[in-house]
Protein backbone atom coordinates (compact mmCIF):
# COMPACT_ATOMS: atom_id res chain seq x y z
CA UNK A 1 0.00 0.00 0.00
CA UNK A 2 2.92 2.35 0.53
CA UNK A 3 3.65 4.55 -2.48
CA UNK A 4 5.78 7.46 -3.56
CA UNK A 5 4.01 10.72 -4.23
CA UNK A 6 4.50 10.45 -7.99
CA UNK A 7 2.72 7.08 -8.08
CA UNK A 8 0.25 6.80 -10.95
CA UNK A 9 -2.36 5.38 -8.57
CA UNK A 10 -2.75 8.85 -7.09
CA UNK A 11 -3.90 10.24 -10.46
CA UNK A 12 -7.66 9.81 -9.92
CA UNK A 13 -7.38 11.64 -6.60
CA UNK A 14 -5.24 14.38 -8.09
CA UNK A 15 -7.85 14.75 -10.83
CA UNK A 16 -10.61 14.98 -8.22
CA UNK A 17 -8.63 17.67 -6.39
CA UNK A 18 -9.23 20.01 -9.36
CA UNK A 19 -12.81 20.30 -8.09
CA UNK A 20 -12.29 20.14 -4.34
CA UNK A 21 -9.23 20.05 -2.08
CA UNK A 22 -8.53 16.65 -0.56
CA UNK A 23 -6.68 15.46 2.52
CA UNK A 24 -5.56 11.85 2.45
CA UNK A 25 -4.15 9.57 5.04
CA UNK A 26 -1.60 7.36 3.32
CA UNK A 27 1.70 5.59 3.70
CA UNK A 28 4.28 7.65 1.81
CA UNK A 29 7.35 5.79 0.65
CA UNK A 30 10.51 7.84 0.31
CA UNK A 31 13.03 7.29 -2.47
CA UNK A 32 15.36 5.76 0.11
CA UNK A 33 12.67 3.25 1.20
CA UNK A 34 11.40 4.70 4.41
CA UNK A 35 7.68 4.44 5.04
CA UNK A 36 5.90 7.36 6.63
CA UNK A 37 2.42 7.57 8.07
CA UNK A 38 1.38 10.81 6.42
CA UNK A 39 -1.36 13.32 5.73
CA UNK A 40 -1.24 14.55 2.15
CA UNK A 41 -3.04 17.65 0.91
CA UNK A 42 -4.08 17.71 -2.75
CA UNK A 43 -5.35 20.83 -4.53
CA UNK A 44 -5.73 21.86 -8.16
CA UNK A 45 -4.31 18.60 -9.43
CA UNK A 46 -1.11 18.62 -7.40
CA UNK A 47 0.32 17.63 -4.04
CA UNK A 48 0.41 20.85 -2.02
CA UNK A 49 1.58 19.58 1.32
CA UNK A 50 2.81 16.46 3.06
CA UNK A 51 2.91 16.04 6.80
CA UNK A 52 4.82 13.00 7.97
CA UNK A 53 3.61 11.86 11.38
CA UNK A 54 6.16 12.84 14.01
CA UNK A 55 4.84 10.99 17.06
CA UNK A 56 4.38 7.31 16.30
CA UNK A 57 2.48 5.62 19.14
CA UNK A 58 4.23 2.42 20.15
CA UNK A 59 2.63 1.40 23.42
CA UNK A 60 -0.46 -0.46 24.57
CA UNK A 61 -2.36 -1.48 21.46
CA UNK A 62 -0.20 0.61 19.11
CA UNK A 63 2.83 -0.59 17.16
CA UNK A 64 3.66 2.18 14.71
CA UNK A 65 7.40 2.59 15.27
CA UNK A 66 7.77 -1.02 14.29
CA UNK A 67 6.74 -0.17 10.76
CA UNK A 68 7.06 3.56 10.14
CA UNK A 69 9.82 6.13 10.01
CA UNK A 70 9.04 9.25 12.06
CA UNK A 71 8.65 12.66 10.46
CA UNK A 72 10.74 15.46 11.95
CA UNK A 73 8.95 18.67 11.04
CA UNK A 74 5.64 20.50 11.02
CA UNK A 75 5.02 23.22 8.48
CA UNK A 76 2.15 25.43 7.40
CA UNK A 77 1.20 26.44 3.88
CA UNK A 78 -1.15 29.06 2.49
CA UNK A 79 -4.51 28.17 1.02
CA UNK A 80 -7.03 30.93 0.27
CA UNK A 81 -5.47 33.07 2.99
CA UNK A 82 -5.61 30.38 5.65
CA UNK A 83 -2.41 29.16 7.21
CA UNK A 84 -2.98 25.43 6.91
CA UNK A 85 -1.24 22.74 8.91
CA UNK A 86 -1.84 19.02 9.24
CA UNK A 87 -1.37 16.57 12.08
CA UNK A 88 -1.83 12.82 12.19
CA UNK A 89 -3.57 11.41 15.27
CA UNK A 90 -0.95 11.07 18.06
CA UNK A 91 0.75 14.29 16.90
CA UNK A 92 -2.18 16.22 18.37
CA UNK A 93 -1.59 14.67 21.81
CA UNK A 94 1.87 16.20 22.10
CA UNK A 95 1.72 19.90 22.92
CA UNK A 96 4.73 20.57 20.72
CA UNK A 97 3.05 19.81 17.40
CA UNK A 98 0.02 22.13 17.67
CA UNK A 99 2.26 24.70 19.39
CA UNK A 100 4.70 24.73 16.48
CA UNK A 101 1.81 25.19 14.04
CA UNK A 102 0.46 27.95 16.26
CA UNK A 103 3.68 29.99 16.19
CA UNK A 104 3.78 29.59 12.42
CA UNK A 105 0.40 31.30 12.26
CA UNK A 106 -1.84 28.35 11.56
CA UNK A 107 -5.51 29.24 11.18
CA UNK A 108 -6.80 25.93 9.80
CA UNK A 109 -5.49 22.83 11.53
CA UNK A 110 -6.31 19.51 9.90
CA UNK A 111 -6.12 16.37 11.99
CA UNK A 112 -6.76 12.89 10.67
CA UNK A 113 -6.87 9.86 12.93
CA UNK A 114 -7.74 6.21 13.37
CA UNK A 115 -8.65 6.49 17.02
CA UNK A 116 -9.89 3.26 18.59
CA UNK A 117 -12.82 3.39 20.99
CA UNK A 118 -11.91 2.18 24.47
CA UNK A 119 -13.00 2.93 28.00
CA UNK A 120 -16.59 1.84 28.64
CA UNK A 121 -16.98 2.12 32.40
CA UNK A 122 -20.02 3.96 33.67
CA UNK A 123 -19.56 7.72 33.80
CA UNK A 124 -21.83 10.61 34.72
CA UNK A 125 -22.38 11.60 31.09
CA UNK A 126 -23.41 8.05 30.14
CA UNK A 127 -23.53 9.00 26.47
CA UNK A 128 -22.69 6.68 23.61
CA UNK A 129 -19.02 7.73 23.39
CA UNK A 130 -16.10 5.74 24.78
CA UNK A 131 -13.54 7.35 27.09
CA UNK A 132 -11.10 7.86 24.23
CA UNK A 133 -13.71 10.01 22.40
CA UNK A 134 -14.15 12.25 25.45
CA UNK A 135 -10.40 12.77 25.65
CA UNK A 136 -10.24 13.73 21.98
CA UNK A 137 -13.16 16.13 22.27
CA UNK A 138 -11.47 17.92 25.18
CA UNK A 139 -8.16 17.99 23.35
CA UNK A 140 -9.47 19.34 20.06
CA UNK A 141 -11.60 21.99 21.71
CA UNK A 142 -8.59 23.12 23.72
CA UNK A 143 -6.31 23.22 20.70
CA UNK A 144 -8.86 25.20 18.67
CA UNK A 145 -9.43 27.76 21.40
CA UNK A 146 -5.82 28.20 22.53
CA UNK A 147 -4.46 28.49 18.98
CA UNK A 148 -7.55 30.47 17.87
CA UNK A 149 -7.73 28.29 14.79
CA UNK A 150 -10.27 26.20 13.02
CA UNK A 151 -9.68 22.53 13.70
CA UNK A 152 -10.97 20.04 11.17
CA UNK A 153 -10.88 16.55 12.62
CA UNK A 154 -11.55 13.38 10.65
CA UNK A 155 -11.63 10.05 12.48
CA UNK A 156 -12.18 6.53 11.21
CA UNK A 157 -15.43 4.60 11.75
CA UNK A 158 -16.15 0.86 11.80
CA UNK A 159 -14.29 -2.17 13.13
CA UNK A 160 -11.08 -4.04 12.49
CA UNK A 161 -9.91 -7.12 14.39
CA UNK A 162 -12.38 -6.42 17.17
CA UNK A 163 -11.28 -2.80 17.54
CA UNK A 164 -13.98 -0.18 17.07
CA UNK A 165 -13.40 3.28 15.67
CA UNK A 166 -15.74 5.85 17.11
CA UNK A 167 -15.95 8.46 14.33
CA UNK A 168 -16.88 11.81 15.79
CA UNK A 169 -15.36 13.85 12.97
CA UNK A 170 -15.90 17.54 13.63
CA UNK A 171 -15.12 21.11 12.68
CA UNK A 172 -14.30 23.39 15.60
CA UNK A 173 -14.26 27.17 15.48
CA UNK A 174 -11.40 29.40 16.75
CA UNK A 175 -13.35 29.97 19.98
CA UNK A 176 -13.57 26.22 20.60
CA UNK A 177 -17.23 25.92 19.68
CA UNK A 178 -18.46 23.18 17.39
CA UNK A 179 -19.31 24.21 13.83
CA UNK A 180 -20.27 20.77 12.59
CA UNK A 181 -20.10 17.28 14.00
CA UNK A 182 -20.52 13.81 12.57
CA UNK A 183 -21.64 10.77 14.51
CA UNK A 184 -20.29 7.25 14.72
CA UNK A 185 -21.32 6.38 11.17
CA UNK A 186 -19.69 7.08 7.82
CA UNK A 187 -21.08 10.26 6.32
CA UNK A 188 -20.59 13.66 4.71
CA UNK A 189 -20.07 16.71 6.86
CA UNK A 190 -20.33 20.25 5.53
CA UNK A 191 -19.20 23.39 7.33
CA UNK A 192 -18.52 27.00 6.39
CA UNK A 193 -15.35 28.54 7.73
CA UNK A 194 -14.46 32.21 7.71
CA UNK A 195 -11.04 33.78 8.21
CA UNK A 196 -12.73 36.77 9.85
CA UNK A 197 -13.70 34.49 12.75
CA UNK A 198 -10.03 33.77 13.30
CA UNK A 199 -9.30 37.50 13.29
CA UNK A 200 -12.14 38.28 15.71
CA UNK A 201 -10.98 35.59 18.13
CA UNK A 202 -7.40 36.84 17.96
CA UNK A 203 -8.58 40.40 18.65
CA UNK A 204 -10.60 39.25 21.64
CA UNK A 205 -7.78 37.12 23.01
CA UNK A 206 -4.44 37.97 21.37
CA UNK A 207 -2.62 34.80 22.36
CA UNK A 208 -0.61 34.61 19.17
CA UNK A 209 0.36 38.28 19.26
CA UNK A 210 1.64 37.90 22.82
CA UNK A 211 3.26 34.51 22.40
CA UNK A 212 6.95 34.71 23.36
CA UNK A 213 8.67 32.37 20.95
CA UNK A 214 12.15 33.56 21.93
CA UNK A 215 11.33 32.91 25.61
CA UNK A 216 10.12 29.40 24.78
CA UNK A 217 13.18 28.73 22.67
CA UNK A 218 15.59 30.00 25.32
CA UNK A 219 13.97 28.02 28.09
CA UNK A 220 13.81 24.90 25.94
CA UNK A 221 17.49 25.26 25.15
CA UNK A 222 18.26 25.57 28.84
CA UNK A 223 16.16 22.48 29.65
CA UNK A 224 17.77 20.57 26.82
CA UNK A 225 21.26 21.55 27.93
CA UNK A 226 20.50 20.55 31.50
CA UNK A 227 19.08 17.23 30.37
CA UNK A 228 21.99 16.39 28.13
CA UNK A 229 24.87 18.38 29.64
CA UNK A 230 25.71 16.26 32.69
CA UNK A 231 27.56 12.99 32.90
CA UNK A 232 25.70 10.17 31.18
Amino acid at each position, binding site marked *: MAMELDDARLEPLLEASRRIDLVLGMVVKSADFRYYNAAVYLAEGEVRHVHRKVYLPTYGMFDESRYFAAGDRVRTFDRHGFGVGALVCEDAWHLSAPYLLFVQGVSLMLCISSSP*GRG*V*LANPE*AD*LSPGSAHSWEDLLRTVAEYTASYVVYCNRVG*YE*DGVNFWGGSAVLAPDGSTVAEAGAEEGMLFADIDLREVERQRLNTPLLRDEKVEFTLRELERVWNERTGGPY
Partner: protein
Amino acid sequence: MSAPAGPTEVADEPLDSSELALNLPLVESILLGFISNETTRVGFDKVVVGMSGGVDSSLVAALAAKALGPENVIGVSMPYRASNPASLADAQLVAEKFEIPLRVVEITPQVDAYFERFPDADNQRRGNKMARERMTILYDVSLAETALVLGTSNKTELLLGYSTIFGDSASALNPIGDLYKSQVWQLSSHVGIPDQVIGKAPSADLWEGQSDESELGYRYAAVDRLLFHLVDRRVAVDELVDMGHDPAFVEAVLQRVRTNQYKRRPPIIAKVSLRTIDREFRYPRDWGV
Protein backbone atom coordinates in the same frame (compact mmCIF):
# COMPACT_ATOMS: atom_id res chain seq x y z
CA MET B 1 -24.89 3.03 38.78
CA SER B 2 -24.08 -0.14 40.63
CA ALA B 3 -23.57 -3.63 39.35
CA PRO B 4 -26.24 -6.19 40.15
CA ALA B 5 -25.26 -8.64 42.84
CA GLY B 6 -23.87 -11.96 41.73
CA PRO B 7 -25.69 -15.23 42.11
CA THR B 8 -27.93 -15.25 45.15
CA GLU B 9 -26.82 -18.74 46.25
CA VAL B 10 -23.31 -17.55 47.10
CA ALA B 11 -23.93 -13.89 47.87
CA ASP B 12 -22.90 -14.29 51.50
CA GLU B 13 -20.60 -11.28 51.77
CA PRO B 14 -21.67 -8.60 49.30
CA LEU B 15 -18.69 -6.98 47.60
CA ASP B 16 -18.76 -3.57 46.04
CA SER B 17 -18.57 -4.12 42.26
CA SER B 18 -19.33 -0.53 41.35
CA GLU B 19 -15.81 -0.02 39.98
CA LEU B 20 -16.72 -2.48 37.25
CA ALA B 21 -20.02 -0.76 36.41
CA LEU B 22 -20.37 -0.35 32.66
CA ASN B 23 -21.88 2.31 30.46
CA LEU B 24 -24.32 -0.36 29.32
CA PRO B 25 -25.93 1.30 26.27
CA LEU B 26 -22.43 2.10 24.96
CA VAL B 27 -21.11 -1.44 25.46
CA GLU B 28 -24.23 -2.90 23.88
CA SER B 29 -23.90 -0.67 20.83
CA ILE B 30 -20.19 -1.52 20.39
CA LEU B 31 -20.88 -5.25 20.68
CA LEU B 32 -23.84 -5.20 18.28
CA GLY B 33 -21.72 -3.34 15.73
CA PHE B 34 -18.86 -5.78 16.34
CA ILE B 35 -21.02 -8.85 15.69
CA SER B 36 -22.64 -7.49 12.57
CA ASN B 37 -19.49 -5.95 11.10
CA GLU B 38 -17.12 -8.84 11.78
CA THR B 39 -19.67 -11.38 10.53
CA THR B 40 -20.68 -9.72 7.30
CA ARG B 41 -17.21 -8.51 6.30
CA VAL B 42 -16.04 -12.12 5.89
CA GLY B 43 -19.06 -12.95 3.75
CA PHE B 44 -21.28 -14.55 6.38
CA ASP B 45 -24.86 -13.62 7.33
CA LYS B 46 -25.35 -16.15 10.08
CA VAL B 47 -23.79 -17.20 13.35
CA VAL B 48 -24.04 -20.31 15.50
CA VAL B 49 -23.96 -20.19 19.30
CA GLY B 50 -23.76 -23.10 21.71
CA MET B 51 -26.49 -22.28 24.23
CA SER B 52 -25.87 -23.95 27.58
CA GLY B 53 -28.58 -22.10 29.45
CA GLY B 54 -25.89 -20.18 31.33
CA VAL B 55 -25.59 -16.43 31.39
CA ASP B 56 -22.57 -16.09 29.08
CA SER B 57 -23.98 -17.99 26.13
CA SER B 58 -27.45 -16.52 26.72
CA LEU B 59 -25.99 -13.02 26.50
CA VAL B 60 -24.01 -13.81 23.35
CA ALA B 61 -27.05 -15.37 21.67
CA ALA B 62 -29.25 -12.40 22.61
CA LEU B 63 -26.68 -9.89 21.32
CA ALA B 64 -26.36 -11.86 18.08
CA ALA B 65 -30.14 -11.90 17.65
CA LYS B 66 -30.24 -8.13 18.11
CA ALA B 67 -27.30 -7.56 15.78
CA LEU B 68 -28.22 -9.88 12.93
CA GLY B 69 -31.90 -10.69 13.47
CA PRO B 70 -32.87 -13.92 15.27
CA GLU B 71 -33.43 -15.71 11.97
CA ASN B 72 -29.68 -15.43 11.40
CA VAL B 73 -28.74 -17.01 14.71
CA ILE B 74 -28.60 -20.77 15.17
CA GLY B 75 -28.74 -21.78 18.81
CA VAL B 76 -27.49 -25.26 19.62
CA SER B 77 -27.97 -26.92 22.99
CA MET B 78 -25.80 -29.96 23.51
CA PRO B 79 -26.76 -31.71 26.73
CA TYR B 80 -25.09 -34.83 28.12
CA ARG B 81 -27.17 -37.37 29.99
CA ALA B 82 -25.79 -36.08 33.31
CA SER B 83 -26.49 -32.43 32.48
CA ASN B 84 -28.93 -30.63 34.69
CA PRO B 85 -32.32 -30.60 32.84
CA ALA B 86 -32.83 -27.05 34.12
CA SER B 87 -29.91 -25.96 31.90
CA LEU B 88 -31.72 -26.99 28.74
CA ALA B 89 -34.93 -25.43 30.00
CA ASP B 90 -33.09 -22.14 30.55
CA ALA B 91 -31.56 -22.28 27.06
CA GLN B 92 -35.07 -22.82 25.66
CA LEU B 93 -36.41 -19.93 27.71
CA VAL B 94 -33.77 -17.56 26.33
CA ALA B 95 -34.23 -18.85 22.78
CA GLU B 96 -37.97 -18.27 23.01
CA LYS B 97 -37.59 -14.82 24.48
CA PHE B 98 -35.22 -13.67 21.72
CA GLU B 99 -36.95 -15.79 19.01
CA ILE B 100 -33.78 -17.73 18.30
CA PRO B 101 -34.27 -21.09 16.58
CA LEU B 102 -32.76 -23.69 18.93
CA ARG B 103 -31.56 -27.17 18.03
CA VAL B 104 -30.85 -29.84 20.58
CA VAL B 105 -27.99 -32.20 19.76
CA GLU B 106 -27.34 -34.70 22.55
CA ILE B 107 -23.67 -35.50 23.01
CA THR B 108 -24.28 -38.58 25.15
CA PRO B 109 -23.80 -41.17 22.34
CA GLN B 110 -20.47 -39.84 21.13
CA VAL B 111 -19.08 -39.18 24.60
CA ASP B 112 -20.17 -42.53 26.05
CA ALA B 113 -18.92 -44.44 23.00
CA TYR B 114 -15.47 -43.00 23.63
CA PHE B 115 -15.34 -43.56 27.37
CA GLU B 116 -16.58 -47.14 27.09
CA ARG B 117 -12.99 -47.75 26.05
CA PHE B 118 -11.57 -45.67 28.92
CA PRO B 119 -13.94 -46.31 31.83
CA ASP B 120 -11.43 -45.09 34.41
CA ALA B 121 -11.36 -41.55 33.03
CA ASP B 122 -11.88 -38.91 35.70
CA ASN B 123 -14.30 -35.99 35.69
CA GLN B 124 -11.81 -33.60 34.17
CA ARG B 125 -11.07 -35.83 31.20
CA ARG B 126 -14.77 -36.38 30.67
CA GLY B 127 -15.52 -32.69 31.00
CA ASN B 128 -12.82 -31.71 28.53
CA LYS B 129 -14.03 -34.34 26.09
CA MET B 130 -17.58 -33.01 26.34
CA ALA B 131 -16.43 -29.46 25.72
CA ARG B 132 -14.51 -30.59 22.65
CA GLU B 133 -17.37 -32.70 21.33
CA ARG B 134 -19.55 -29.61 21.57
CA MET B 135 -16.94 -27.64 19.68
CA THR B 136 -16.93 -30.18 16.84
CA ILE B 137 -20.72 -29.97 16.61
CA LEU B 138 -20.68 -26.18 16.45
CA TYR B 139 -18.03 -26.27 13.72
CA ASP B 140 -20.02 -28.88 11.83
CA VAL B 141 -23.08 -26.61 11.97
CA SER B 142 -20.79 -23.76 10.95
CA LEU B 143 -19.87 -25.51 7.71
CA ALA B 144 -23.32 -26.96 7.03
CA GLU B 145 -25.10 -23.64 7.55
CA THR B 146 -22.36 -21.17 6.56
CA ALA B 147 -22.51 -19.65 10.03
CA LEU B 148 -19.64 -18.26 12.09
CA VAL B 149 -19.13 -19.76 15.55
CA LEU B 150 -19.51 -17.18 18.29
CA GLY B 151 -17.43 -17.61 21.43
CA THR B 152 -18.87 -17.24 24.90
CA SER B 153 -15.78 -17.07 27.14
CA ASN B 154 -15.70 -14.01 29.37
CA LYS B 155 -12.58 -12.16 30.53
CA THR B 156 -12.57 -13.77 33.97
CA GLU B 157 -12.58 -17.26 32.46
CA LEU B 158 -9.99 -16.36 29.87
CA LEU B 159 -7.63 -14.88 32.45
CA LEU B 160 -8.07 -17.74 34.91
CA GLY B 161 -7.87 -20.34 32.16
CA TYR B 162 -11.19 -21.72 33.32
CA SER B 163 -12.01 -23.26 29.98
CA THR B 164 -11.09 -26.26 27.85
CA ILE B 165 -8.50 -25.41 25.24
CA PHE B 166 -9.90 -26.13 21.75
CA GLY B 167 -13.21 -26.82 23.44
CA ASP B 168 -15.45 -24.05 24.76
CA SER B 169 -12.63 -21.57 24.14
CA ALA B 170 -12.75 -22.20 20.38
CA SER B 171 -14.64 -19.70 18.25
CA ALA B 172 -14.40 -17.31 15.31
CA LEU B 173 -15.59 -14.20 17.15
CA ASN B 174 -15.95 -13.56 20.83
CA PRO B 175 -18.16 -10.59 21.74
CA ILE B 176 -17.76 -10.89 25.53
CA GLY B 177 -14.09 -11.78 25.97
CA ASP B 178 -13.28 -8.30 27.30
CA LEU B 179 -16.05 -8.35 29.94
CA TYR B 180 -15.57 -9.74 33.43
CA LYS B 181 -18.22 -12.10 34.74
CA SER B 182 -19.69 -9.33 36.91
CA GLN B 183 -19.97 -7.20 33.79
CA VAL B 184 -21.61 -10.05 31.89
CA TRP B 185 -24.26 -10.07 34.61
CA GLN B 186 -24.78 -6.32 34.26
CA LEU B 187 -25.10 -6.43 30.49
CA SER B 188 -27.33 -9.49 30.62
CA SER B 189 -29.72 -7.65 32.85
CA HIS B 190 -29.61 -4.66 30.49
CA VAL B 191 -30.48 -6.71 27.38
CA GLY B 192 -33.28 -8.59 29.16
CA ILE B 193 -31.87 -12.04 29.90
CA PRO B 194 -34.37 -13.62 32.32
CA ASP B 195 -33.51 -13.20 36.00
CA GLN B 196 -33.46 -16.92 36.64
CA VAL B 197 -30.58 -17.27 34.18
CA ILE B 198 -28.65 -14.33 35.64
CA GLY B 199 -29.30 -15.27 39.23
CA LYS B 200 -28.35 -18.94 39.21
CA ALA B 201 -24.95 -20.18 40.38
CA PRO B 202 -22.60 -20.34 37.39
CA SER B 203 -21.69 -23.88 36.37
CA ALA B 204 -19.93 -25.52 33.46
CA ASP B 205 -22.47 -28.33 34.05
CA LEU B 206 -19.93 -30.94 32.98
CA TRP B 207 -20.82 -33.16 35.90
CA GLU B 208 -23.60 -33.22 38.43
CA GLY B 209 -23.49 -30.45 41.00
CA GLN B 210 -20.46 -28.70 39.48
CA SER B 211 -20.16 -25.04 40.43
CA ASP B 212 -17.66 -22.54 39.01
CA GLU B 213 -17.15 -20.79 42.30
CA SER B 214 -16.58 -23.92 44.39
CA GLU B 215 -14.27 -25.33 41.72
CA LEU B 216 -12.29 -22.13 41.36
CA GLY B 217 -12.27 -21.64 45.12
CA TYR B 218 -13.36 -18.02 45.05
CA ARG B 219 -16.34 -15.87 44.27
CA TYR B 220 -16.60 -14.06 40.94
CA ALA B 221 -17.24 -10.72 42.62
CA ALA B 222 -13.95 -11.01 44.52
CA VAL B 223 -11.82 -12.32 41.71
CA ASP B 224 -13.28 -9.85 39.19
CA ARG B 225 -12.40 -6.97 41.44
CA LEU B 226 -8.87 -8.31 41.88
CA LEU B 227 -8.40 -8.96 38.15
CA PHE B 228 -9.76 -5.53 37.32
CA HIS B 229 -7.15 -3.94 39.57
CA LEU B 230 -4.37 -6.23 38.42
CA VAL B 231 -5.01 -6.23 34.67
CA ASP B 232 -7.03 -3.16 33.76
CA ARG B 233 -5.59 -0.79 36.35
CA ARG B 234 -2.05 -2.24 36.41
CA VAL B 235 -1.94 -2.14 40.20
CA ALA B 236 1.24 -3.73 41.61
CA VAL B 237 1.03 -6.69 43.97
CA ASP B 238 2.13 -4.79 47.09
CA GLU B 239 -0.39 -2.07 46.31
CA LEU B 240 -3.13 -4.70 45.90
CA VAL B 241 -2.43 -5.94 49.39
CA ASP B 242 -2.53 -2.36 50.70
CA MET B 243 -5.93 -2.02 49.02
CA GLY B 244 -7.23 -4.90 51.10
CA HIS B 245 -6.81 -7.89 48.81
CA ASP B 246 -5.69 -10.99 50.69
CA PRO B 247 -2.00 -11.69 49.83
CA ALA B 248 -2.51 -15.46 49.42
CA PHE B 249 -5.52 -14.84 47.17
CA VAL B 250 -3.53 -12.37 45.05
CA GLU B 251 -0.66 -14.84 44.68
CA ALA B 252 -2.97 -17.75 43.82
CA VAL B 253 -4.85 -15.76 41.18
CA LEU B 254 -1.69 -14.28 39.68
CA GLN B 255 -0.16 -17.74 39.45
CA ARG B 256 -3.27 -19.04 37.75
CA VAL B 257 -3.31 -16.18 35.23
CA ARG B 258 0.37 -16.79 34.39
CA THR B 259 0.08 -20.57 34.17
CA ASN B 260 -2.84 -20.33 31.77
CA GLN B 261 -1.22 -17.90 29.35
CA TYR B 262 -0.81 -20.81 26.89
CA LYS B 263 -4.58 -21.06 26.51
CA ARG B 264 -4.76 -17.48 25.32
CA ARG B 265 -2.07 -17.74 22.66
CA PRO B 266 -1.81 -19.71 19.41
CA PRO B 267 0.48 -22.76 19.58
CA ILE B 268 4.19 -21.96 19.67
CA ILE B 269 5.90 -22.28 16.32
CA ALA B 270 9.57 -23.29 16.21
CA LYS B 271 11.29 -20.42 14.47
CA VAL B 272 13.68 -21.38 11.69
CA SER B 273 12.99 -18.97 8.82
CA LEU B 274 13.56 -15.24 8.56
CA ARG B 275 9.83 -14.54 8.53
CA THR B 276 7.75 -16.62 10.89
CA ILE B 277 3.98 -16.49 11.29
CA ASP B 278 2.95 -14.20 14.17
CA ARG B 279 6.53 -13.07 14.79
CA GLU B 280 7.52 -11.09 11.69
CA PHE B 281 4.49 -12.06 9.57
CA ARG B 282 1.92 -10.26 11.64
CA TYR B 283 -1.10 -9.12 9.72
CA PRO B 284 -4.42 -8.41 11.39
CA ARG B 285 -6.99 -11.18 11.26
CA ASP B 286 -9.20 -8.92 9.12
CA TRP B 287 -6.36 -8.52 6.61
CA GLY B 288 -7.75 -8.43 3.11
CA VAL B 289 -11.46 -8.37 3.96
